[in-house]
Every structure is written in C-alpha cells, then in structure tokens.
C-alpha cells in the first residue's frame, strides 16, 4: 500500500490522540461487555474529560449508560448547578444518590468531622448506590499518576462482592484485551483515564474546549480563614465563628469536593489558560517537602481495599 499517496504520513498518532483512542476503546469495551454499567460523575475536570470521551465513543448515539453522582449534600452549589446543566445539555440520564441514613442522622463535616463524613456520605453511599441499582461495572476518572496505589491498579479493576480491592490478587492485563467476567455480586471499576497525566488532562481540556465548573476560575467570592485554609461561605449551614470575618477575595479552587473540606487559593487566573499556567508554575515552589507523601498514599490504598473508589 502506498501510504503517502493516500495522504497519510508514517507519523505516529500524537500522545493525546493515542490516549483519546485508548480511552474510547475502554469505554466501548465496558459498554459492550457488561449488563448494567454506570459512569460515576464527580463533576470535576477528570469526570468532565471522561464524559467528553464517552460522548465521542458512541456518537451519533448517546452513551448507553447513566451517570451517577454521589451527593453528600455538601458540594458547592455551583457544582450542582453545573451537574444538572451538563446532564440536560447532553441529554443524559443522571442518577443522584445520597445515603439516606446519613441524611437522617444529619451527618456532615462540621458536626462529625471530615473522616466520618467522607466514610458515610461518600464510601458507604457509593456502595449503596451500586448495590441498589445492581451495577456490574462503574467507570471512574482516576489516573495512575495521581497516587501510588493507583500506579499498580488495572484498567479493569476487579472488586469482590463487598466492593473490596485486593492488590495482590489482580488479573493480569495484556494488550488491549480486558477480562470483563464477573460472578453475581462482583463488579469491575473501569478507569479509562488510567494513562493520562494531569498535564494531559489540561491540554485536552484546552484543545477540546471542554466546559468546566466556574469554581476552577478565579472570581470574587466570600471566604473566611479557618485552620489556615480559605473556606468559602457557600451556604447558611456554615456558621461564622467569633473572630472570623467574611472577606470578598479573588479566589479559585484546584480540586472540587465538599465545600467545607476544600480550600480556596487566592488567584487572578480567570481563564482556563491562566489556570493551567498558574498550576504548572506553582508546582515549582511546592516541590520541597512534598516530593513523596507516604501517609497519603498508604491511607488511599487502605481506603480502596475497603471499597472506596
């Protein structure tokens, strides 16, 4: 075959195009092999990229699975607005689950502390939702470069009937052939973004113009300083303590989660380009002492074994 004559060069696909193709392949494989898959949608940038890829994978059809958001009820209001708009804009089926017992007991980060809150409203809530709907596969937007226990996790990560991960007993994963077989009650967590790095994610968002929650962009927002962290006053559940003062500051968020657990950073970066630049350059000052963080990764490994995503 004369390749040049057809306008093809012998050049390889670029990094982003290879990653994109690999992710689409994984997403299609899950959709084809599982009875009842779901895509976990956490509203952040990785979820945004994953969803964008799912739309491409099945175009002109819609993705053949619903989105699931585990709502702790403490997410930023902007996140919830963005979530609902996204589902509507794309015409997708969005499931929202909140742990009903947690809700009844009034579990929250202010009253119960972050670890109880996260366990009950996130980890347990997720397991409930997966069991309740009988999902046999769930997509997650995690990347292998995020933390150490992920570096060894499979693209198709097997979970036993109680959602546990056994790092010593993982299935070998060769080529792009994925073993999708599970017994009743067992499931697979599938990670289409496994081989993306944070820089890849931002490059892709920029080149593909993927919409993001405005909280990533700097704007004037009401914040108080608490425990060395700038906390946004997102609703009336946040009590202003004596000595605290609500300030209007130009801030943005690097990660998005429950607002009482997510610190803002002061910044003027109000475009995607500016954020990327700031994010990449800020790293240099951050390096000392943060090179390795044993405690974080070990505890993540532990959480995962217990069924955390």
């Amino acid at each position: 075959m004369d390749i040049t004559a057809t306008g093809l060069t012998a050049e390889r696909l670029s990094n982003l195009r290879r990653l994109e193709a690999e992710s689409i392949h994984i997403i299609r494989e899950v959709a084809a092999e599982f009875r009842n898959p779901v895509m976990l949608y956490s509203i952040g940038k990785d979820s945004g990229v994953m969803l964008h890829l799912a739309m491409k994978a099945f175009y002109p059809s819609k993705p053949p699975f619903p989105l699931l958001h585990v709502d702790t009820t403490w997410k930023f209001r902007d996140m919830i607005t963005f979530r609902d708009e996204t589902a509507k804009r794309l015409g997708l089926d969005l499931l929202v689950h909140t742990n009903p017992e947690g809700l009844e007991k009034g579990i929250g980060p202010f009253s119960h502390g972050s670890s109880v809150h996260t366990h009950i409203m996130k980890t347990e809530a997720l397991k409930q939702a997966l069991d309740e709907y009988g999902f046999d596969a769930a997509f997650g937007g995690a990347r292998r470069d995020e933390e150490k226990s992920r570096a060894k996790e499979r693209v198709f990560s097997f979970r036993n009937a109680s959602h546990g991960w056994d790092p010593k007993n993982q299935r070998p994963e060769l080529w792009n052939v994925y073993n999708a077989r599970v017994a009743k009650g067992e499931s697979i967590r599938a990670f289409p973004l496994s081989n993306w790095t944070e820089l890849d994610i931002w490059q892709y968002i920029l080149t593909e113009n993927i919409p993001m929650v405005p909280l990533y962009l700097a704007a004037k927002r009401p914040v108080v300083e608490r425990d060395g962290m700038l906390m946004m006053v997102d609703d009336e559940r946040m009590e202003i303590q004596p000595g605290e003062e609500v300030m209007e500051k130009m801030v943005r968020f690097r990660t998005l989660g429950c607002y009482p657990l997510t610190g803002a950073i002061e910044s003027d970066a109000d475009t995607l380009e500016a954020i990327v630049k700031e994010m990449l350059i800020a790293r240099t000052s951050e390096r000392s002492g943060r090179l390795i963080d044993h405690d974080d990764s070990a505890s993540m490994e532990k959480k995962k074994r217990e069924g955390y995503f």
Partner: protein
Amino acid sequence: MSSTDTSTATSTAPQEAVTDYILAQEQKDQLRFLTCGSVDDGKSTLIGRLLFDTKLIFEDQLASLEKDSRKHGTVGEDIDLALLVDGLEAEREQGITIDVAYRFFATDKRKFIVADTPGHEQYTRNMATGASTADLAVLLVDARHGLMVQTRRHAFIASLLGIRHVVLAVNKIDLVDFSEERFNEIKSDFETFAAGFDFESLEAIPMSARYGDNVTGRSEKMGWYNGPTLLEHLEGVQIGEHELAQPFRLPVQWVNRPNLDFRGYSGTIAAGSVQVGDELVVSASGKTSKVDQILTPQGEARLARAGEAVTITLEDEIDISRGDLLAAAGSRPDVADQMAAHLIWMAEDALMPGRSYIMKMGAKTVTATVTEIKHKINVNSFEHVAGKQLELNEIAFCNLALAAPVAFDPYEANRTTGSFILIDRVTNATVGAGMVWFALRRATNIHWQALEVDKTARADSLGQKPAVLWFTGLSGSGKSTIASIVEKKLHLEGRHTYTLDGDNVRHGLNKDLGFTDVDRVENIRRVGEVARLFADAGLITLVSFISPFRAERQLAREMVGEGEFIEVFVDTPIEECKKRDPKGLYAKAEAGEIKNFTGIDSPYEAPEDPELVLNNVGKDPEDVAEEVIRYLRANNYLLSPSLVSGGGGI
C-alpha cells in the same frame, strides 16, 4: 494539593506564551517502554532519576517563560530517588515488588509511559504484561556483574512479546571506574547474544542512575562515550508504525444504531488505514461491502489509520456483530478453528490440555482447549522441553482448538489481531496469554463441503489459478532475469509462486545428470514432473530452462496439462547472447572447453507455436516482465481471489 498554598501567580509573562507552549505539546508523541532488571541493579533508582530530572527540566522551561526566570538549586545528592517509585504498602511490608507499576514522565518531544516490572523468573507473567503494550525495553545490568541469566530471559520475553527496540542500560558504571573497556566487553557480549533476536534497534548505554551520568545529562566522567544519553535515545528512537504498513483490520467492538438510518461499526483500527470507498470483507462470513462514512473522534474523515478509535458505515446492509473482524478485501486474515500459538501461563493452577477455557481475542469470545503442548521453552536457556502441563510463569508452544472459527493474523504481523487471553471458566481469572503463529486448519465456507482435497481445492485455498510458465531460450537470452522479475511481481500481488531454474535443479535433483542428449531429456522430464506436482499443489511455477528440444517441451506440456502450460520463448539472437555472455560460457565453448553447448555444438529447436514470444534486445527487463503479467491477466490467470471458484474463498 497543599491547601495552605496561597501563592498568587504574579507573572507578567504574556498569557499566550504559556498557552502556546502547552498547545505545542499537543503534537508530541508517546513512547511506551518497559524496564526490567534484577533486584538491586538500580531499576527503581533509574526510573526515579528519569521522573525527577525530567520534571526539573520541564519546570525550568516553564519558569523561563516567566519574566523573572527562576532557576532551581541543584538537587541534593542524597534524595533517595528509588523512593519516588515506592510500591504498595502490601509490598513494602513484604519487601518485594509484586506487580507491574506504570509511571509517567514527559519531555517536549515525547510523553513516556513506563511499565516497571519485577525481574525474577517467578514474575515472568508480570514482565509479559508490561511488555505487551511496550514499544521498547530497557534491560538493566550491573556493570560489575555484566550479563546475567536474567538478562537473557528478559531479552527473550521482550522479543516473544513483539518488542523491536532494546536498550541495554549498563548501570553502576561508577563502581567500575567508568571503564570503557568494561563497557565494551558487556556491550559486545550482549550484541553477540542478541543477534539471534530480530531487534530493529539495540543501544547499549553506560550510566550511573544514582549520580545521573548519561541518564538525562551527559557524563563528564566518560569522555570516551559519544553515544546518546538514555533520555536522548528514548526521545529520538524511531518507532516505525509497523501496524500502519499492514493490511487494514478493524475488530468490531460495538454496533452503533441510534436509528434506522444509521448503522455504524465501532472499534480501534488494529492495522493499516481505510478510506471512504475501500472494499472491506467481514472475515467470518466472507461478505463484502464498501466504506461509506468514517467517523473519528475529530469528526467525519475521508481516511483513518491504525490506532484510531473509529465508527465506520458501509454501503450495504450486511450482518456484522461484535467480535467480527472487518478487513481489506484484497488481503484477508486467516479464519480457522485450530491454531498454533505461544502460551504464557499466568495462574497457580496448571494448564491442562483438554480442559476448556474461555478465549478472548480482540472483541471475540469463544471456548477453547489446548489440544497439545508441542514443547515448553526454558526461559533461561531457550531449550525446548517436553511437558504434559504448563505451570505458572511457564511458556509453551501449543496447538489449540476453538469451538468456532475466528479471524486472526500471526502475532508477528499484528500484535492486536494475533493475541488472546485465556480465562478460567470457574474463577473468571485471566490464566493465560497467547500469541498466534499460524492456523492449523483453514475454515472457509467452501471448504466445509469439499470432501476431497484435490488440485482445485488446493488452488482455491491459495486464491489463485495454477500455471506453469515455461521459459525457453538460449543461454544468456535473459530467461532467469525475466522469470525472477515476473515472480517478484506475482509475489507482490500475493500470488504463491515457485521458480525452478537450471542452476537450483542441477545442483540437487539432477546433479547426477550431465549434458549429453540423453541426460538433457531426462533433465527436462524430471523438471516437467516437478512442475506438474507444483501445479497440482496450486502454485504458479516458473521454469527457466534452455530446454532446446521441441519433443521434450511437448512432453512437459502434456504432463502439466493443456491450459496450464504457458510456453514463453525468449527469442534473443545467438549473436546477442554471445555478446552478453554473462558467465563467459560461449567463449569457453568456442574454445572447445565445454562440450555439447547449445547454439555452438548442440542444436536449439525454436518453438513453433509458443504462447508468448519475448524479444528483449534493447529493452528494460521490467517492461518485458510486464508483458508476461499482461498475458496472464488477459488470459484470466490472475483473477481476484474471490472469483476463482465463484465463492468467498480465503
């Protein structure tokens, strides 16, 4: 991320500079490589060094875009780089590496994905896993110890899994005083040993992972070394798109049917490229159609190529489902229910021949059994050993039987369409990984009914019409030259051919014959008989023989059979042949040194009614050979394979 970091970017650098920089990086490509070495060779240190140094380089580049360019202080020598790639808690508790880890780093030119695999023999399965997606392997050795048994094992597994590029990282060179001699010794040992593997590139690099020499930066202590640093080599090594040069293959993953007007077939192109209008075949059914539309992640396209995840629509409504393979109609894959393959066993429970497993090959799932272990391969010595069953981490060459035919290519040609995994039916664990070598029994629709394998059946299975092209003419007339070009042209078209010429036959089959007339007759009779057998086997056979006597050529014609015997007279005048005299034979004959030489003291009887007469005086042999091809085409010897027997022959 640090939540206490309240730094504001106070840069005055133009926004666009950074944006452009980021976007420019979109064009960089990706290299996946595997690192393997034994415990303490310095693998973790090396990977840590690569991750750490490239991050510094990257950040320096970004920082230099800032107005007040910041430079980083030198890295403390005492940072333990190995900690950067520290393993799971479960591993730390046991002090071992149990699994493949994937690491990432990038430079301006490439993004790298590193499969970091443990090196012990009991981790062959992990190494194979890492190797399955890698373009290149970095094999580590300790300069003090040189090549070890495991180096051989690593090279073997890399080669078995289809890796074509290898780097020999001769580490800890600081501990042998940066000795050039020691390096050269190890390098030449390795080159000798690796010559048996078909690696496309092989680069030995002396380095010290611990101190950084020749990893990302050039060493000042090895002035004698003028090859690339490891990073330079990784950035620059040309990884050819092997898959791109192969015929088009698309394993169908998903049938996309949003409405009655659209029916698309989605999958990742495993080989070659495809354009709107190309004719494709569904390999299992043999049905063909043309490409109507190609949808890529970037939108509708006229063309797509290996590696892209596409959706294709066809002009005709034909039955295609997940697991089918769409292929170039002119170049079909094998379809068979029996195959020979290399198998790597990955489970504690041994492989039992005769036991049934689930085979997943691309998007196809089928039941399979290993019918026979032909031999096991000792991964250290490469010796073949007999075996009744296959244990964890062992490799064997096996025959497999499947419950239904599947379409595939040999692994050597295509890592995607030639690979499979085996899954245990009870535990659902992935227990084996296989690389197909060849089909043991072709399964085409026509051949199901064919009870007897006859000449037609054989020719059909090759997708061609058998023929014997009999080139006759004086010594030096150009028979062999033309025949060999014709054979090349036929071969390029995918025809199965063989050439018999005076030289190859005289040295073997007919080495007992001389040049007397009696011997000449017997010579032709034997060659005629062999040509007949080859035609019977379905081949297009080219005979290039002076064959001076009409009667013997007639004999050959009768043996082969009318319609398959094509007499080609290469009509070069004797004067011209004498002038050419490529082997100096005419001169010798005229000097009486050779007896019974055709044209000198033995007659040449020109054909009276040959199928084709070629006159090559003053012509380009290519053009003359093309005349032969034109003749074959005009007389229906080169029909497209599917028309040979009027069915979907493969």
